[in-house]
């Protein structure tokens, strides 16, 4: 085992009924990084996190977190992990202060300053009841409760889910600036790629229960490229391109997005004799959407669309 990995899985698989929610996941998360876990809804992100936290048993495969088997996490290991669930559920009858007091009684290491600081950052009054808090405020309270024990690993399951952009930005800022230490690892899932782009060192991308990418953020952006080809008339039929994700044909333009764009792909495209051919830089969001979106060729040429219809 790699001693530097805080999370390691081997062939980790989870079935719900006959459907594989996570299939043969092999993952190594190095210590001290911010690791973003991406994928569409139902792709297996939450299930993976819940398996890693010992909340649901894997169907097969193994996993360790901080070097301990995920099937038998001890209280000592749990004390080293902060876990923020996606819906920020808490006891509605408690107030903010009671939440802090309740949680603090379980942790030997409890930093009240952090708790108060994060709660203050979100404008939470100590006497405010949880059931009366807005979703953003509740997320802030959950984050405060998660951070106060000063965990060395933070597992955040879609922390910005359901929050408005301002609340989400506040949460992400708190998460990053208050928690970032050299030896602390943050593992989070998200749909908000701008947050990921600002914070993550590494990303892993799930596509229909299968891990398709796991690499530094920059590597992902480099690997997914788009090429725009212009033609004097209707673009010709697209030949077989290795790593093709999407191709969009319009009246006199062809946009090709593929992974691992290389000489072979370039040669194949040049053979179409475009009048102009240029590489278009993609942001993470565009790259991600292309990567997980519908594969194959789309046509927006009116005559062909009419003929098809």
């Amino acid at each position, binding site marked *: 085992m790699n001693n*530097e990995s805080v999370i390691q899985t081997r*062939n980790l*698989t989870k*079935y719900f*009924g*006959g459907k*594989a929610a996570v*299939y*043969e996941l092999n993952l*190594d998360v*190095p*210590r*001290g*990084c*911010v690791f973003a876990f991406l994928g569409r809804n139902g792709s297996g992100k939450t299930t993976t996190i*819940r398996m890693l*936290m*010992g*909340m*649901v*048993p894997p*169907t*097969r*495969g193994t996993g360790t977190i901080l070097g301990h088997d995920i099937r038998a996490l001890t*209280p*000592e290991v*749990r004390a080293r*992990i902060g*876990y923020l*669930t*996606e*819906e*920020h*559920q*808490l*006891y509605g*009858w408690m107030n903010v202060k009671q939440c802090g007091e*309740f*949680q603090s*009684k*379980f*942790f*030997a290491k409890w930093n009240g300053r952090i708790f108060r600081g994060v709660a203050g950052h979100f404008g939470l009054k100590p006497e405010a009841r949880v059931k009366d808090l807005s979703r953003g405020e509740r997320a802030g309270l959950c984050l405060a409760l998660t951070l106060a024990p000063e965990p060395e690993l933070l597992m955040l399951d879609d922390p910005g889910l359901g929050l408005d952009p301002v609340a989400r930005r506040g949460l992400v800022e708190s998460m990053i600036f208050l928690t970032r230490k050299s030896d602390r690892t943050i593992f989070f899932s998200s749909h908000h790629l701008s947050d990921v782009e600002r914070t993550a*060192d*590494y990303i892993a*991308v799930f596509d229909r229960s*299968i891990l*398709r*990418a*796991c*690499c*530094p953020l920059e*590597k992902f952006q480099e*690997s*997914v490229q788009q090429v725009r080809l212009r033609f004097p008339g209707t673009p010709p039929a697209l030949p077989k391109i*290795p*790593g093709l*994700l999407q191709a969009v044909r319009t009246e006199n333009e062809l946009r090709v997005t593929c*992974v*691992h764009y290389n000489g072979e792909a370039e040669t194949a495209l040049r053979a179409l004799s475009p009048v102009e051919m240029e590489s278009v830089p993609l942001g993470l969001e565009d790259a991600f959407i292309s990567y997980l979106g519908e594969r194959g060729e789309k046509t927006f040429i009116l005559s062909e669309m009419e003929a098809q219809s």
Partner: protein
Amino acid sequence: MKAMIQKDLRENLKLALIGLLIFSLLLLQAYQTCISTLTNMLTGNSSGQIGALQPLLATGLLTGTAFFCAIFGTALGWLQTRNEAHRDLWAFLIHRPVTRTEIFWGKTIAGLCLYAFGAGLPLAVLVAVVRTPGYVAAPFEWAMVVPPALIFFTGIAYYFAGLLTGLRQARWYASRCFGLGLAIATSFGVVASTVFWIPTVLIAVAVLILAAAAWGAYQSGGFYRGQPVAGRLALTVALTAGCGVALFASVGLLVNLVLGPLTHHPYVWSYYQMTRDGTIYKETNRDGNTEYADLDGHPLLDPKTGQKMEPKEFSKRIAYGRGVLSTLKYRNRDQYQYSIQNASGFFSLWNITDKTLWYLDRHGKLLGYDGQTRKFIGSLDPHGNDGKLASEPFLQRADSNYYNAYGDVPQKIIATAKTVYQVDFKERTLKPVFTLTNDEIGGYDEEEASYEDNHAAKNFLITTRKTVCLMDYDGRPIFALPYKPGYFEYPQVEISFLQLTNSSMNNFAVWFLPDYLMNKAAGWKLPEHILWIAPAQTVTKSADLPVLRLDEESSWPDKLATALLPPPVHVEFDDKIYKSWNLLSYTLALVCSVIGWTLARRYNFSTTASIGWTLFIFLLGIAGLLTFMCVQEWPVREICTNCKKFRAVDRESCEHCEAPFSPPEKNGTEIFEPLAKV
């Protein structure tokens, strides 16, 4: 753990308060019923169960308590887990640096405290009220607290069953609530038991099993896999009971509601009747129709009409009678036989005179309570009413659970083991009527007086170790017979009062009836022995008649229902099971165990586990198979890409060819790069 306890106390306090309120109202209503029963009895307007005078023994209160404790316990346990069953809240609860056992105990301690608060506190207040003079005009002793206390403790089994139900990862229509089956079975056991230690052990075992099953569920988040062995065993036992109860209820409904109406099976019941001229007839009830025949089987005809005798006409000819059950056989045993259904184990209401209620308690003391002040006024014994407890115990009479304000003979006599006394409740005095020296009284009762006689009984019947004697109230014997056959095999003696006619010169007939269990053990060979007695105290005639039993032949749906019972029940209760249906039972058990074995092999159980489960299923039949299917989690199976056979997805490699699962198929878009520490 302290924080967890405090949190759960606070979180579920509302439910406990609601429970407290409902149960308090229920108990208050039971107390009011007790007071109104007393009032009605004092005014002579009411008959009723004697237990209704003591709220702790009142059937209504015990039934209400049983339902309340079961529902409250279940609701408390279920809500305690259900409130946190949302996966994120569950994660918040579980993900903290304490063991799941500590979390379980934190919640359980809080839950049990709230249960004690909601159900125990009102009961404790009721007990305090009942034993305070001036509230209840009936005897109190601490043993009376046992029935409601046992019901209260049964509620703890329901509490753990509720916890288990809230946590179990199963579908509602399948087995999620089957944990309740064990608690329900325990309730039935508590109600049906007649020996104190049985319900105590039942409750302790049920609580232990359900607590272990709930604890196991906490360890694994409600899944069977991942539980410690103790949790899995407890869950299996709990679900076995649940499956048994579900099966029993389903078969009962099927037989009674579906198959029963389709099949007609006559209910036949026969017994002997004696008319006033001393002739014995056999009365047979068949589907509500009554027929009379003489002992040779000839139908009895009405001489007026020449038609078959009608019950109304026949009832005019029946001789009045009275029976005495000899208690000598049980004299040295503790008279208190535990039973929730029978309050007479504690006391019987002997008499109501001048607003004073006289009770004979289980210790043989005649205790008086003022009906208006509801206070104890003292006891009555051979030395007079001195306000102290009597020293010589009086004997109970049989059938003293019900007080009939209209029909019962005012009881004039009471007996100790050696002496019969005539009682004057107005003067509160006892006058010896009859005393034995070398003998001991077994039982006694007064004559059934007719309406014509204005309820004025003239005689009483008494049995001793050696004799059966009818006496008048001055202690003069009308007749005396040797008690032969003896009281051990024939504990019950009945007397029929006959009329002298031209054809019959007998004025009494004495019936010696065999003990049911001893007769059963003897193969029903002990007959009913009857003697006819003439006025000169001479036995003029005797007869031995075979004992008539209920027709125990059942309909085929009943037989089918018993065939579904597991094989060990057939072995244990062989005489009650219809032998021709045994084969079906064993066949069903065999078929179930074959299915179980096949499932176990298909899902790659170890050989030991497969054999163990197969044996388990064979022993328990259909209930065993249901349990097996409910307890286990059944992983989906896929076709192995290597050997093309079905393989379970929860194994690391194929059970047939040992091939690992194929990695995810590559589509050329994968982006992987080794990650280094930042």
